[in-house]
């Protein structure tokens, strides 16, 4: 099937879609690694996503966490409205929205407003979430989160609130990708998914269960950190930053520090996560990403904005990724 013939059609196994390259993640947080008060992260986000649009990226993405001291964006749809208004053509998406926390009766009007602000430019990525304090505060049963998410999705689909919106699913488990397939949705793989061979295995499971969804061309997405840097000293500093940001982020994975995992566990987690970051010369990053493309990834969310980074560093990365990485990914197909 040619691309032209498949346009607008339901999912069809074997489609080769053009590679899309997006950027993440604008979570507007400012923590201890780069303290600043006030609305600076929002001002910087506008400049950075406008640059991303000018440089030809396909999409920009936001995530969701609640009750974080650093202001981590808790309202992904609201943030998408903010970023969509600041841009004209680039897609905005959630990677991911913790759908089980939300009442579909409030999600539906938010999606309607997003549809008005940015027609055809919004992508909804959903996931189960995992933080106990978020589920407890919103009075949601953590153990039932998979069921709650499916009930919410069913309600949104039935009401037509998801019409015309690309549906993406985050996750790391086989169950997550089977669920994504049942809904005819695209998948968003995290950096912890492993080497290209692991992606190939997950893609196989997803494809084997894939159901058609009207208007959606299912894709395989991968998000990971990519910082082009030729200078070895600066690359080492970026690696250190990634490790510290992951260490900070790891608090979301453990229980209350008073009750939960030890510092050693968090250090190990940070080190392990940071090892997935691609930091180095552009050619080296491109080579690494092309290996994932060969394994079936057709949507990359590169990740130059991670926590409290200086905006100048982020914008330099966006510039370099646009000129030295994205063209090679797109020309792979």
């Amino acid at each position: 099937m040619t691309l032209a013939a498949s346009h607008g059609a339901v999912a069809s196994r074997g489609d080769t879609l053009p590679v899309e390259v997006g950027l993440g993640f604008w979570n507007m947080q400012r923590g201890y690694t780069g303290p600043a008060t006030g609305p600076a992260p929002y001002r910087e986000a506008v400049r950075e996503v406008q640059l991303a649009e000018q440089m030809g990226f396909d999409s920009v993405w936001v995530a969701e966490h609640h009750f974080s001291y650093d202001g981590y964006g808790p309202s992904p749809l609201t943030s998408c409205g903010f970023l969509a208004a600041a841009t004209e053509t680039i897609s905005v998406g959630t990677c991911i929205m913790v759908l089980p926390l939300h009442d579909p009766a409030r999600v539906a009007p938010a999606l309607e407003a997003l549809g008005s602000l940015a027609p055809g430019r919004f992508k909804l990525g959903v996931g189960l979430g995992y933080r106990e304090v978020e589920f407890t505060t919103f009075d949601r049963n953590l153990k039932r989160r998979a069921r709650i998410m499916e009930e919410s999705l069913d309600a949104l689909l039935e009401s037509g609130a998801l019409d015309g919106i690309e549906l993406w699913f985050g996750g790391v488990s086989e169950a997550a990708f089977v669920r994504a397939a049942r809904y005819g949705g695209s998948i968003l793989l995290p950096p912890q998914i492993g080497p290209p061979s692991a992606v190939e295995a997950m893609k196989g499971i997803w494809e084997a269960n894939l159901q058609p969804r009207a208007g959606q061309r299912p894709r395989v997405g991968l998000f990971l950190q990519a910082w082009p840097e030729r200078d070895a000293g600066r690359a080492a500093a970026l690696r250190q930053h990634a490790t510290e940001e992951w260490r900070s982020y790891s608090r979301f994975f453990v229980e209350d520090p008073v009750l939960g995992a030890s510092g050693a566990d968090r250090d190990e987690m940070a080190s392990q996560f940071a090892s997935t970051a691609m930091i180095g010369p552009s050619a080296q990053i491109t080579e690494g990403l092309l290996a994932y493309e060969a394994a079936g990834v057709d949507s990359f969310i590169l990740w130059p904005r991670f926590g409290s980074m200086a905006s100048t560093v982020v914008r330099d990365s966006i510039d370099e990724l646009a000129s030295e990485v994205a063209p090679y990914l797109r020309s792979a197909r």
Partner: protein
Amino acid sequence: MSGLRLTVQVTPDDARAAVEAGKLAEMRGIDSIWVGGTAGPGSDSAKVTMTLAALAAVTDHIRLGAVLGPVASEHVMFVAEELGVVDQASGGRLELILPSDDQDGFVQQADAIRRAWAGVRLEDGRVVGATPTPVQPQVPTTVLASEPGVAEGSGSRCVPIEVARELPEAARFYDTRTALLMPESPDWFEAPHEDSAKAVVDLVRELEHCRATEVVFPIDVGSASYREKLGFLAAIVHPALGASSYEVDLVVADALSWYDRSADSSFELAPLS
């Protein structure tokens, strides 16, 4: 009479149109835009905060008012988070407008949102608060009431202008911030005519009597003529609101004359779009 604020109110039903109206209002020099219905549970908080976040991205200084109907208790934390995002994203331009017909209702609504920002206590003792919290130490909050007794002592209130007109004791608003909500379509505003200047002058004198600090005009962004109405508000009403009563006749006459002449002109000194 200086410092009297001019506000337009739009619904979030068409978010894109509301955002375009906000951009235009800012370009015209209008001080504030309120987004949301005027009263009751029809107000949709998710659309209101989404529209305000979008406005925060494309405007620089216009104040952003969230008109929120009653918020279900299970949604208060989400709304508080979204309002925090709007205040951060706008650099501290958020205001809350809470329609309520009784004092208890207003206080409960305002307190629920403030408590969510300050932190709520879970059953296990942990205290969890919405983040980000607003940039502003205190978000200006106005009760939108059908009679002036509501929210006594709250510091700010908004009443329909018909209510203000019927109240001989309107002067008792002296110690509070009072906004007046214009009826949807005063004829001089709906279709400006030769008596419009007199109507505007009368309005300014009435506001002075009420010691009002703000006047709110609902705008229907679905109407083809709303841009002209914004233009009339900005060109005639706004300068009048800044004029003292002794000079308001002359200011309005001059502004109206300029408005007519600039409309006839083949060029604009300050293009507006």
